[in-house]
């Protein structure tokens, strides 16, 4: 069967054709497929962390620390619940928006705009990591939270918190470095001949980091 014939089918028929016909199964660039496979494995890692967190939170007979209060900020003498976390969430969403636009301009071949948008994305990501460092410092120094104990409630809180947000923060940090490298190469015209799929691939990684944060925000901070 020729590949042109299979590409015209849609729906379930296209699924069957893509997998069974004598052709390459996935009609996407190699790098993009590999990034998706990597993200799939990362999905499992984060899911296991969150499931472990669910298990320890359900098994403990001690009350879980009230996250809404633990992560509140004092603004003008008032406790505002989860303020920093909300700001971090908005920053990460905004960085996802600028990244999506960078991908769009990349396929239009507008190198300058891609560079600027990717740098903005990286700067937003870096500020996210900065805020996380601030949050960690506040929790460790002021509140006395340790992986094995804390003054607010169940001991497992510290271990879950440092493990999950730490691993996510590590992903954001790696993403910032990744973005910076690709942005620099885009500006230098490194991809003029190779094509700009790399920007979409970088985007996939970055959106995934945002995606994981959506789950952490819901399960760890809001639950």
């Amino acid at each position, binding site marked *: 069967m020729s590949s042109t014939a299979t590409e015209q089918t849609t729906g379930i028929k*296209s699924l069957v054709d893509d997998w069974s016909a004598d052709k390459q199964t996935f009609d996407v*660039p190699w790098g993009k497929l590999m990034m998706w496979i990597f993200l799939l494995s990362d999905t499992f890692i984060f*899911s296991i962390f969150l499931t472990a967190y669910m298990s320890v939170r359900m098994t403990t007979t001690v009350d879980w620390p009230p996250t809404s209060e633990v992560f509140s900020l004092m603004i003008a003498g008032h406790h505002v619940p989860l303020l920093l976390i909300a700001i971090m969430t908005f920053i990460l*969403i905004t960085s996802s928006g600028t990244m999506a636009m960078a991908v*769009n301009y990349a396929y239009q071949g507008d190198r300058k705009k891609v560079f600027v948008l990717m740098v903005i994305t990286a700067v937003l990501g870096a500020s996210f990591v900065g805020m996380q460092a601030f949050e960690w410092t506040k929790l460790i120094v002021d509140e006395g939270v340790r992986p094995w104990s804390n003054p607010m409630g169940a001991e497992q809180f510290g271990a879950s918190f440092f493990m999950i947000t730490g691993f996510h923060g590590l992903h954001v940090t790696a993403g910032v470095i990744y973005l910076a490298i690709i942005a620099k190469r885009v500006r230098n015209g490194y991809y003029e001949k190779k094509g700009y799929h790399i920007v979409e691939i970088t985007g996939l990684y970055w959106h995934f980091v945002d*995606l994981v944060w959506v789950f952490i925000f819901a399960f760890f901070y809001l*639950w």
Partner: protein
Amino acid sequence: MSQAVGQQHPISVYLKIWTLLFILSTFSYLVDFYEVQSYLRWSLILLFMFLKAGLIIAIFMHLAWERLALIYTILMPPLTILVLIALMAVEADYINLSRILYFKVV
């Protein structure tokens, strides 16, 4: 290697999704701010979470425009995680019960 045409969609699509994500995030923040509790709290949190996750995957990551072969490859395996969650929830419930029963803690 075949070179499929890259994903190209009008910027306005992204701006709309961006706005939507902002609104949904604000909603989930308000759930906490107004101290909504119990089942309403959990269902609202989950609803906003899944909507946000869906928008990011479908639009920002372009999965909605990929071919089914790729979509299924990515979305099917994580379903096994649901089994893990179910198993761990049952087990955790049991451990919690045992601790209350035998360690005399309430």
